[in-house]
């Protein structure tokens, strides 16, 4: 019924106009959906990727010769620690920056009955935000629990024969008297990287075990932005706080820009092709329209309208159509982009009113160029020949 109604109205006077309008709405709608997506995909995809670990590491600028020697030989100088002053400075430097998550790390070498272990103390909440992708068997550490809890890397667990809910006995190595601590294993970590070889505890537990307090080895930061923006943030930190080195982790950042560029390229090409096809469809209909209106044009010419006036009439019609079609297309595109982004990123799109004039401009230009052929045909009409038959 609806289709019949629509087609009836198409069959009446402005049949051609409506067809052109539909073509332009479909074309600009698709294009505006893709343009919306084009602007969003960068930010959304980066935000999505930022959930996979830190992209900036802050470490002390100087290194120290190994101070803890447990019969281990070191292959390089051991880093110094960040003290409370440096941490404060870092906090201030980051205060007004877009940082998604950050967490401190404090490393030291611990000793279990069987072997030396790398112990990492961290702020569990931040660590968890930074590494939501970690494959964990069991659960995360509750920092307030007593006895203190720990998580062990898969390799550590395999080597020492540890399993969930067992106790891990650690000897406090730096205090003068040999004291033993019992940690409850609440989770097993598997990442395929260094974490597999480490024991993770809450920061206060780590300080208690090592007999130190208020110092950390590094801070991992998850900053939003492109590779160069992160690079700038690193420079900002180094300039603000002395004695710090901020190192962007390039592995993900560099490559993500590259992959995103490919995806955006593809979208641009699709937008271009869609617009070309829309223009061709509009061209067909517009040519038909001129054919139907040739008597009208002939009459105008007979009454003294010049080529300029006739072209102006047609162009004005195109601009009118373009404005209406572009507006509706923009709205349809917005709806489509909304659906697409819900499906892709489970988030809503950012409204971009500044795209509306762009879309309308595209629609008008498209229609005007599509009508060039039709207008030329109209200008060729010989009024005398055509009107003779009346």
């Amino acid at each position, binding site marked *: 019924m609806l289709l019949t109604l629509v*087609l009836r109205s198409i069959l009446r006077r402005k049949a051609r106009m409506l067809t052109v309008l539909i073509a332009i709405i479909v074309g600009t709608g*698709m294009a505006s959906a893709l343009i919306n997506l084009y602007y969003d995909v960068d930010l959304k995809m980066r935000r999505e990727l930022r959930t996979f670990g830190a992209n900036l590491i802050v470490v002390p600028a100087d290194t120290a010769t190994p101070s803890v020697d447990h019969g281990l030989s070191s*292959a390089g100088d051991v880093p110094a620690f960040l003290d409370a002053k440096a941490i404060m400075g870092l906090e201030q430097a980051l205060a007004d920056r877009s940082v998604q998550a950050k967490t401190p790390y404090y*490393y030291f070498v611990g000793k279990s009955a069987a072997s030396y272990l790398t112990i990492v103390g961290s702020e569990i909440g931040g660590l968890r935000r930074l590494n939501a992708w970690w494959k964990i068997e069991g659960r995360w550490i509750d920092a307030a629990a007593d006895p203190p809890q720990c998580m062990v890397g898969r390799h550590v667990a395999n080597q020492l024969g540890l399993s969930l809910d067992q106790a891990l006995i650690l000897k406090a190595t730096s205090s003068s008297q040999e004291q033993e601590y019992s940690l409850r294993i609440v989770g097993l970590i598997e*990442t395929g990287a260094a974490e597999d070889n480490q024991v993770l505890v809450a920061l206060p537990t780590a300080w208690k075990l090592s007999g130190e307090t208020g110092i950390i*080895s590094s801070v991992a930061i998850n900053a939003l932005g492109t590779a160069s923006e992160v690079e700038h943030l690193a420079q900002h930190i180094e300039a603000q706080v002395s004695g710090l080195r901020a190192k962007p982790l390039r592995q993900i950042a560099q490559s993500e820009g590259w992959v995103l560029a490919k995806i955006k390229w593809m979208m641009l090409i699709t937008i271009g092709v869609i617009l070309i096809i829309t223009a061709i469809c509009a061209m067909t209909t517009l040519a038909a329209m001129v054919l139907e209106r040739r008597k009208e044009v002939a009459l105008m010419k007979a009454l003294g309208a010049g080529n300029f006036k006739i072209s102006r009439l047609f162009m004005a019609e195109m601009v009118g159509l373009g404005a209406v079609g572009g507006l509706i297309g923009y709205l349809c595109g917005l709806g489509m982009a909304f659906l*697409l982004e819900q499906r892709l990123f489970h988030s809503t799109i950012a409204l971009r009113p500044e795209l509306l004039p762009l879309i309308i401009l595209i629609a008008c230009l498209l229609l005007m160029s599509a009508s060039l052929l039709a207008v030329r045909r109209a200008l060729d009409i010989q009024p005398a020949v055509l009107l003779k038959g009346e």
Partner: protein
Amino acid sequence: MFFRILKESFRRGAKPKAMVGIAILLGSALITTLLSFTMEVGDKIGRELARFGANLVITPQGASLPVSIGDFQYQPLSHDAFIGEAKLVRIKEMFWRHNILAFAPYLIIPIQLEDGSTAPLVGTWFNNPLVLRDGQTFATGVQAICSWWSITGQWVKDNDDEAVLIGEDIARAKKIKVGDFINIHYANKREDVSQRLRVEGVLRSGGEEDKQIFAALSFVQKISNLNGKVRKVHLSALTKPDDALARKDVKQMSPAEYDRWYCSPYVGSIAFQLKEALADVDVKPIRQVVEVQSSILSKTTLLVLLITSTTLLSMGLAVASTTSTTILQRRHEMALMKAIGASNGDIIAVFLIEAAILGFFCGMLGFGGGVFGAYWLGQTIFGTSIQLKLALLPLILMSAVFTTLLGSSVPLRMVLRVDPAQALHEI
């Protein structure tokens, strides 16, 4: 009679048909391009994603726990397990060999620099040509696997025993430039080795590599007296994002499920088969890279699929509307046919068969155009070609014919109700 009408219609009314034809042609070309692209985008993007670095790590079974503070590695007390370098060629000979994009072995030893400080010396393949069983060579190493490294100077050749790449942090601390020479000392169990090495390049990675020195694997094996041994292997494989099946425990799979799992390039099944092929090793996915890759891959595939399907829809609409325009234009023709006694069925047959012929041939041409389009798109975006997909041809032809018929049938229904006397009067 019927065929004469058709023939004459194509001969005389070529112009409006040309417009419809062009629309169908372009539409089916675009759809062919997008569909061929969609079918391969997973593979193509997957290859791009190899830029994120290794996604699997191979370690010898029973390797002792390394002790490290941040990036700083303590040397384990016992020199324990290694992987035989000669075995590594098997990686490119197993079932998933085509999915293995690159790999690099590592052997790390602590060396002393001139000023008495120590640093890790990493022996690796830079771009080592590996001769496979079928006689082909496969060049691989860190150059392929660590695309984010930036090198000032030059890469080291794999047969060059006198050159090193030096991490940026060491270069900065010791004020070493490209072209300088460094002296290193290493005491292995039998002898003290001293060697003068040329700094071929300075390496910047942002990771622990900035504090390391890289040399050819054979050289490091020689001075450490660990010939033919490597400590770990990083490997970059083309994988399929994990789905419900991949997350299932292997031991709880039914035989059918197990076969399907074994024959799909999940990161888990590739790891499993690497372990089978190499024996006495542990193969672990590097979760961070795997997760990033599968997140991008699934999002991109979905994005392309959504773009393709919406484009398909709008193309169908555009082509159908163009077709109906031209049919509407010919209502006088239809009125004339009616006036001289053609039944509605006759007219419908003429117009629909016309539309089908047009749809078929233009769809065919469009398919040809689309194959070129896909080739060009593949070259522009990924620098590799997209293969010809003949399986798409029937699909494209069907949708072209269907769209043209749809575009024709709606206005035909309207036009048939037109009174010939009235319509002919308008002329």
